[in-house]
């Protein structure tokens, strides 16, 4: 039997880059930072993932898709570990991925707000409309079609849009 060289972490991440987030199909689970690690050994592949939100209903689907992508490469049994620490943050989304989000019509996340506990503090940062790029926008609801998004309205082009919430 001819032994193949084991794929490196980078090669595994390249394979997993084909797995898109089912709720934000323009980004892969690698670009979102959901995949934290991938290690191949003779015993198979171990992938470590972290959920975006505690109750994210897409996690099961993402696990299934990761298994499917790796099965196609015939690297042996696939084990998926879930880690909660460090907690997922939108700061892990790369600049290139943020551009993809905006082109897709979702305002990318800004920087994570400070951890001050002042419940009535309004966020100071404005969110740019992904369609006409105006800064004249207002938040309609902190919660959008999925846990990771909020609903905004652009006063310039009169277009509602979603923002990927900084968390």
């Amino acid at each position, binding site marked *: 039997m001819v032994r193949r060289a084991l794929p490196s972490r980078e090669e595994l991440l390249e394979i997993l880059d084909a797995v898109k987030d089912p709720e934000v199909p323009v980004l892969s689970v690698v670009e979102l930072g959901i995949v934290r690690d991938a290690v191949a050994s003779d015993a198979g592949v171990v992938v470590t993932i972290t959920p975006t*939100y505690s*109750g994210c209903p897409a996690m099961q689907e993402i696990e299934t898709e990761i298994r499917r992508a790796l099965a196609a490469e015939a690297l042996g049994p696939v084990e998926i570990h879930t880690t909660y620490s460090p907690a997922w943050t939108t700061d892990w989304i790369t600049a290139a991925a943020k551009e993809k989000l905006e082109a897709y019509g979702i305002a990318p996340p800004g920087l994570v707000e400070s951890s001050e*506990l002042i*419940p*009535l503090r309004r966020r100071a940062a404005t969110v740019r409309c992904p369609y006409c790029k105006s800064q004249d926008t207002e938040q309609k609801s902190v*919660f959008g079609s999925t846990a990771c998004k909020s609903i905004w309205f652009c006063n310039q082009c009169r277009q509602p849009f979603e923002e990927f919430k900084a968390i």
Partner: protein
Amino acid sequence: MSDPASFSYLTRLGDDRLVLGHRVSEWCGHGPILEEDIALANVALDMIGEATLLLKLAGQLEGKGRNEDALAYFREAIDYRNALLVELPIGDFAFTIVRQLLFSVFSLLQMEALQRSTNADLAGIAAKAVKEARYHVRHAAQWVVTLGDGTDESHARAQRAVDELWRYTGELFLADAIDHAVAESGFGVDPSRLAEPWRVQVEEVLHRATLAIPTVAYMQRGGRDGRHTEHLGHMLAEMQIVARSYPGATW
């Protein structure tokens, strides 16, 4: 390693969020406006997600082979350890929102402290829950101000909700032998330490909302020991019926 205090403590944390998450999910499809319907569904999803992680860890530490589903669907009301506050029926929108404020501020303070738990899994779950609870607090606080400092009708309803709910808030901060044991070991946090910061936060919001802070002499209690209102059993009957009718079913 089986550790009774840690297990009991985790069921308190998990049951608070499971029961309130289920209650809030009752608004799905019934919210006063579409955005709020979606917001409440999101908040419910966060809490049920947190409950899933907490109960899963509880089952692991218990070491009797019970997972999060076994704990959620196959325990009786008497085995639930949530505070009475979270099991009360949803009432009107004001009642739901005021309760969200009272619980979310508590939850945020609790989870902030639990980020320093000596148990790495619990610390990780807490770090995640803090981010979610911060959004929950902001959402509820803005609504309480909108309703309290709104029309005569919305003010009256918000005040009625505060008055009805206040007597259920004392239980959140009661510490018993279980709390002392987990605080001692560094696994958990003594809830009585959270009372003062909670009062400061909540009173600030109620002041801005022009709502009066009630003075009640008697605080309800019992949920942490499994003594519940009649409402929990009805809620669990609905929540558990599918899992009990079709044990082991998956889809």
